[in-house]
């Protein structure tokens, strides 16, 4: 039986960015437990000042290499709001399609490469390259389709410069679109095999009810746009986010924490699933049933499973979007809306793979950025994660220090934190 444990994981592995897990147990009493962000900030809110709007959106995309499409789209929408730009319905459809590519690649990276090794009792996916190459290939195939889908629409997955204020700098090749559709149909089987795999894996059973925050949209499962929503019942336009989301600087962290109704809340796949479950594609809901994931789900370890369900939704919805685009055809006239520099303030929010993401920019009358604010999903989750750790650790206090450490690391990983992005 453990009486003392002094856990300090310096730079936890298999997460994006640098964070430490600290837990101190003395005499079976939890003295301290926390996840702290020690990432070096890059000061995006400061460095975009003075840049013209066209460059701001490119720089903003560099906040994160994993969810660059989300950052790009948030920056685009905020900038378009500030400059009063109306994008074409075609652009809206294409951006939503690119989004699905990013969600697929980001979630599958997490599911297979970051989270799965824990569940399979492995230190990483590397040993599988020799022992179970078909799983590694499946994982790479799945992840790749996300990259390729985003790249087809946006030119490149990581930092998609072809997405510009007002539209796109090029029109994708329609022939490629059909090829992509066929590939999407073909990977549905791989996704099904993944559901199969996950239905056999056991997650630590820790539950804690919390506030779930996401976008919500009247017509669809919200990713690219929508209204701000809390599971506590609030709804408001995104432009009023400062009324709800309160950021603060905390000790031990270069990322800021946030609160809304409760001192901490959860964002991300599980929050979306809880808030918008009915709008999931029927096949995704079916998978949710198979995986025992009908809302409300209060198990943070199940975030990974929620991501998998979203992947199924995204694959199906991407196929439908492609069909819609094929039916209407894509037109050069709708590729790029006219843009004029003017002074203005714009706010936008999107559902990045890891949760709701806010960008806000103010421009002067030459279209140069005066100020910026970014609220990042991982930052918003930090409070909630720390609260989980605080409540979960006492329940496992009798485990060995190694086991405690492992369970805490798994909990951090379940949130799929994107730390450099949260610090930005």
């Amino acid at each position, binding site marked *: 039986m453990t009486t003392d444990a002094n856990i300090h994981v310096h730079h936890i592995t298999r997460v994006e960015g640098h964070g430490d897990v600290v837990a101190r147990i003395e005499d079976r009493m939890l003295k301290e437990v926390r996840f702290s962000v020690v990432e070096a*900030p*890059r000061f995006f809110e400061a460095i975009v000042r003075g840049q013209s709007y066209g460059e701001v959106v*490119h*720089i903003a995309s560099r906040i994160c*290499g994993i969810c*660059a499409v989300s950052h790009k789209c948030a920056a685009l929408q905020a900038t378009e709001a500030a400059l009063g730009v109306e994008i074409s319905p075609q652009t809206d459809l294409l951006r939503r399609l690119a989004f699905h590519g990013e969600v697929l690649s980001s979630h599958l*990276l997490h599911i297979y490469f970051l989270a799965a090794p824990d569940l399979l009792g492995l230190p990483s996916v590397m040993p599988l*390259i020799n022992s179970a190459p078909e799983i590694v290939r499946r994982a790479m195939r799945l992840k790749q389709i996300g990259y390729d889908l985003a790249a087809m629409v946006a030119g490149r997955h990581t930092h998609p410069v072809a997405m510009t204020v007002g539209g796109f700098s090029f029109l994708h090749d329609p022939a490629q679109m059909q090829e992509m559709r066929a590939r999407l149909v073909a990977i549905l089987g791989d996704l099904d095999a993944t559901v199969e795999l996950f239905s056999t894996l056991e997650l630590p059973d820790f539950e804690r009810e919390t506030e779930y925050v996401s976008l919500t949209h009247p017509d669809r499962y919200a990713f690219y746009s929508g209204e701000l929503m809390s599971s506590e019942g609030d709804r408001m336009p995104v432009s009023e986010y400062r009324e709800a989301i309160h950021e603060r*600087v905390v000790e031990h962290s270069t990322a800021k924490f946030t609160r809304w109704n409760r001192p901490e809340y959860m964002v991300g796949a599980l929050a979306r699933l809880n808030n918008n479950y009915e709008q999931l594609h029927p096949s995704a809901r079916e998978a949710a049933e198979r995986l025992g994931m009908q809302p409300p789900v209060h198990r943070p370890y199940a975030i990974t499973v929620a991501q998998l369900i979203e992947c199924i939704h995204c694959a199906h919805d991407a196929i439908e979007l492609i069909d819609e685009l094929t039916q209407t055809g894509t037109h050069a006239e709708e590729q790029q809306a006219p843009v004029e520099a003017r002074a203005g303030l714009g706010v936008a929010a999107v559902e990045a793979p890891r949760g709701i993401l806010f960008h806000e920019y103010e421009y002067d009358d030459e279209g140069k950025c005066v100020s910026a604010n970014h609220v990042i999903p991982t930052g918003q989750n930090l409070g909630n994660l720390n609260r989980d750790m605080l409540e979960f650790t006492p329940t496992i206090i009798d485990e060995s220090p190694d086991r405690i450490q492992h369970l805490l690391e798994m909990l951090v990983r379940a949130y799929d934190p994107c730390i450099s992005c949260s610090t930005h």
Partner: protein
Amino acid sequence: MPQEAPIPRFGHKPQVAFFDFACCEGCQLSVLQLEEKLLEILGHVDVVTWREAMTETSSEYDIAFCEGSITTEEDIERIRAIRKQAEVLVTLGSCASGGCHNELKNQWSMDEVLGVVYGDDAGGISTIPSRPISAVVDVDYQTFGCPVSLPEFVTVVSCMLTGQHYEPPNQPVCVECKLNDYVCVYEKGEVCLGPVTRCGCNAICTSFGHACQGCRGLMDSANLPAMLKALTREEAHSIMRMVVERHSLTEDEIAAKLRIYNNWPELRMEEAQPDDD
């Protein structure tokens, strides 16, 4: 000379470690997108440390791939230690090799940028002017791009494993753009940094009709004064006249555009012309 494992240069299967400094980690992620090619590379080496992807670590490695910029005192110590251990150090992407957005912050005092982001609570956070890894330690192979240009990464890996040098190309993006038969974005009235930017990306941005943003940094012989002249010259022929009139850029604005990826060391428009005497 037949090449067979073990790689002759190392006398054994080399051990590889990945490290990251301040950046978006998009370079690592891009490398993961190499798919089959990545598996082929992994066949020649053993990855022993890669915090993002694996929990196993080792303090023994032959090759270190490093991404990101150096922005803290602690980073300097860390990269020096890595340099000491690694026989070969490869920088991944522009943050590590040249200069990237990170270096934009060097325009202001560190107190000012801390204040803008953290307000009055920034007390515990420290930062130093950002610089690429290549400005702190010797680097054996450099790859540029934001994110890293995959064709260049593949070339560098094959050069490294066959014991060859790799010099970053000293040619502008226009060369690759033209060889691919892309439409010059100036023809569409946009301003492109391709003529002064180091190629090696296979002109990826112009391939989808977007101006080169200059992410790979200036090539050695970049003629910046020529860019000032070209973008402000009134007596131009039709295409360039359209560009000049549409944007009416000032010299400061042109410099600001170039600075996004070229602020280490601080960009000086008049100086970057080692080509001519």
